[in-house]
């Protein structure tokens, strides 16, 4: 699910950036560092334009300046039970991997409808019901999150296809 979230970030700038373009430097730094990053709970999807930069403070000893930036961002946080769209990245005997943005999910053998079988002989290997349903690398797929676990800056999900629509 997507949220609008207010956040704060401390940015250090090297003295060589001090000058009339300092604001854009900070902006760029913020975008490159934060956008797309995952905290383990949610992923920052997009930083909104309006943000506040505090007065800079030179750090004793280094000469770098520290700025605190307040900004708003659209963040995405997956929930258990949520239905998501994703792209299949890898197909193996035990199931297949799905990338849903920053979240990597795995759909196990038992979570795939029983009419869809694994075909190791196909190149590349695929899950298929020998009709129009083929799950191979690159397939767009819709799954439901059955389990979710977050580690530091990484999230894992278990997906299922049994309770949602087919690809």
């Amino acid at each position, binding site marked *: 699910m997507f949220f609008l979230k207010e956040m704060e970030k401390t940015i250090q700038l090297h003295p060589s950036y001090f000058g009339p373009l300092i604001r854009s430097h900070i902006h760029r730094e913020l975008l490159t560092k934060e956008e797309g990053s995952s905290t383990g709970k949610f992923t920052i999807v997009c930083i909104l334009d309006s943000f506040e930069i505090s007065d800079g403070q030179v750090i004793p000893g280094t000469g770098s300046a520290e700025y605190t930036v307040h900004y708003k961002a659209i963040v995405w946080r997956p929930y258990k039970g949520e239905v998501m769209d994703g792209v299949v990245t890898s197909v193996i005997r*035990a*199931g297949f*991997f799905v990338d849903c943005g920053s979240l990597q999910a795995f759909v*196990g*053998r*038992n979570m795939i409808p029983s009419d869809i079988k694994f075909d190791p002989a196909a190149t590349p290997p695929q899950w298929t019901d020998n009709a129009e349903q083929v799950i191979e690398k690159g397939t767009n797929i819709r799954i439901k999150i*059955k*389990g979710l676990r977050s580690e530091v800056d990484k999230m894992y*999900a278990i997906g299922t296809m049994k309770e949602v629509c087919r690809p």
Partner: protein
Amino acid sequence: MKIRSPPGVQYPITVEELAKKRDDAVQRSDLLLTYSYEATVTEIDKYGETSEVKKRWSVRFNSSADGVIAKWFVQKGAVIARAGIDIVEIEEPCTHEIQFGSMCVNCGKDMTESDYLTEQRNVDRARINMTHNNVALLVSQKEAAMAEEDSKRRLLDAKKLSLIVDLDQTVIHTTCERTIAEWQSDPDNPNYEALKDVKGFQLADDNVAHVAANWYYVKMRPGLKDFFDRISTMYEMHVYTMATRAYAQEVAKIIDPQRRYFGDRILSRDENYTDKLKSLQRLFPTKTDMVVIIDDRADIWHYSDNLVRVPVFNFFPGAGDINASFLPKQQELVTATAKVASPERAAANDKARDEEPTNGILTEIEQQLLSMKGDDAPEVLEQQQKEQEKVIITQQTERPLLQQQLWLDKEDEAAEETEESIEPKDGEIPSHEHHKHRHAVLHNDDRGLDVIEENLRRVHQAFYAEYIQKRKTTLPQAGRVLELKGEKSPKKRSMGGEHVPDIKDLMPRMKHEVLGGTNIVFSGIIPLGMDVQFSDFALWIKSFGATVSLNVTKQTTHVIANPDRKTTKVKRAARFPNIKIVNAEWMLQCCTQWKHVDETPYIIEMDAADRSGSPFEDLEDDDVGVTGDEEGDESESPVQVEISDEKWQSIGDELQDFLDESDDNGDSPSDSDSVRSDTSTHSDSKRNKRKRKRLTGTASADGSDEDSDASVDSGSKLQKRKKRAMERVTSLNNVVTGDKSSGLPSPETTGPEEGQGEDEGTVPDPTSLSREDGSEDDEDEDDDGLAAEMLAELKKSESEE
């Protein structure tokens, strides 16, 4: 899941009551049973008097798993005496066989949770990673076995085997030098032809070198596409590389654009748990019966029996393996170090070649030891990355290829023809075809794949021939037995693993036929200070059935020598026509082609002077007397000679001739009255084949034998001592021979083995061994002393004459 009596409880305990019946559903932390135990406690009554009282306590025992009770192993009133006794079996709805990111794939539960009830953490149920491109997916032993059984069946049906393919220097060669791009766009360049199929790529997220937009240029080994086409009908191929994932992916795109050969079966350093070794168990955790590996390095596979070692593919001279800094340091050979270097350096080396081998080799070994010992400590990794960075930057800035080409051009102008080199690793030595009057640094004549293909084909054929054979012989029987036993499903059994041959047995067997019965001595090949038996070359050739000795003995059939240098061992071997003195190329050819190639083209020519012996050694060749134990050995003579008697006879005759000759011009003690029926025992009495009864009349054929060298004069204490020492040396070797588990030079290299590879003019120092303390410090002194003693002996015998 079975619940057992827990540790940390005061046993014995008595079961008071079972709270659940069979087939009851239980939830985690539900009451399973109550038990009681007895303990003595100290009670203080109201008057302040203490007393020891025995008391019974009742305790509730909770379930540590969800599920249905399948079976009780205890009844009410039962007494449990110790921990670890089965109490109840609970059938779980999900056994968490497959886990992804520490969650069960089937029920989605977090596996890392643990509380007071946890006996075995759920994450420990699935510990095996058998996925190529993911480290988060783990499976249990049972699941892994099932998956492998599945794939085995599939492979057998398709008549295929699994093949693990290494990338760098096996099927491709990569460099970062941007000279390649310049040459590619210049049709006048002499290297243009060879570079036609070189493809370049950039890695988007290349933080390896901290150099923006680093280009990699990949050259496919000639004939790679056809090779894959043909091999993929016999093998299911996997990529296993020590490069990064991104790199492996890009290379896979180049060598397998349709992903027909490898699919997603690509394993890179990112998914390999260690940086040092490649492990079959990483991909095939339980069964490696049907796996063949091709790689140019054997040490990182721990000299696995599944390995087909291939000749190194070295297209860009001096580029090496750009991912090699993550691997343990390769053992370098003397000849290789001298020539692989860039031309300028090589030129300099020509002068300094003699010093070369001794320099820096110890540090090399130290480094290797260090790197092998290396844990995955971050600083080690950092260092490796820096090393790789350095390699890449060097390639980018110094442009060794360009330098080489310039050097070549200059040489062309001077109209010089460099000599064709016979050096094995010198696939990269500049070619000599004239191409627009300029020589090319790169040339496209590697034929390594043909040999690999031939070997793989042979393994495949042998495997399935044996498989079909075994099925034929065992199947009907098994079926009948099953029928008699009245078992239900013979079909199911017939797929069982009994008929499937094991590559680990099959391949060594095939390889052993190649050089079986040969006895190899290295000379001037393996750097000083390295344990010969554990050197890369020795381990390699031993896997083909050859035995490796330290010294030239009468069993010796081949001496592999450095053509540039005449070592003592070569000189000694030169006097025996039956010993073939060949260069290292012969061995490489044998080991890559898997056949005993004809030695003739590889023979190192010896001049006549070398063919005749020095008087000093003649003395030793003559056996004046034998010692007691030798006679004892003679009586029991189970001869197991690899060489036929006729051959021995002829060898003896030749020797006789030779000895007569030397007798004519030399004044060495005559062998006319020497005891000819002597037997030289080769220390190692356990091995019968080493004992050999000498035919009377074949005069002193044992001149080639170190042992009999020693038995010149029964009266000489010195010689006896030497002989004893030699015995010890050889028995030491034999112990070592059997063990090839490690590619490392053993750290506790013993005295005599040191310097064996390169002993220029020194006899292996026996005296230091003969003494019990065997201190190595005064080795040189001993050596000198020995030489002096021997000289004295010689003079004495001469004067007696």
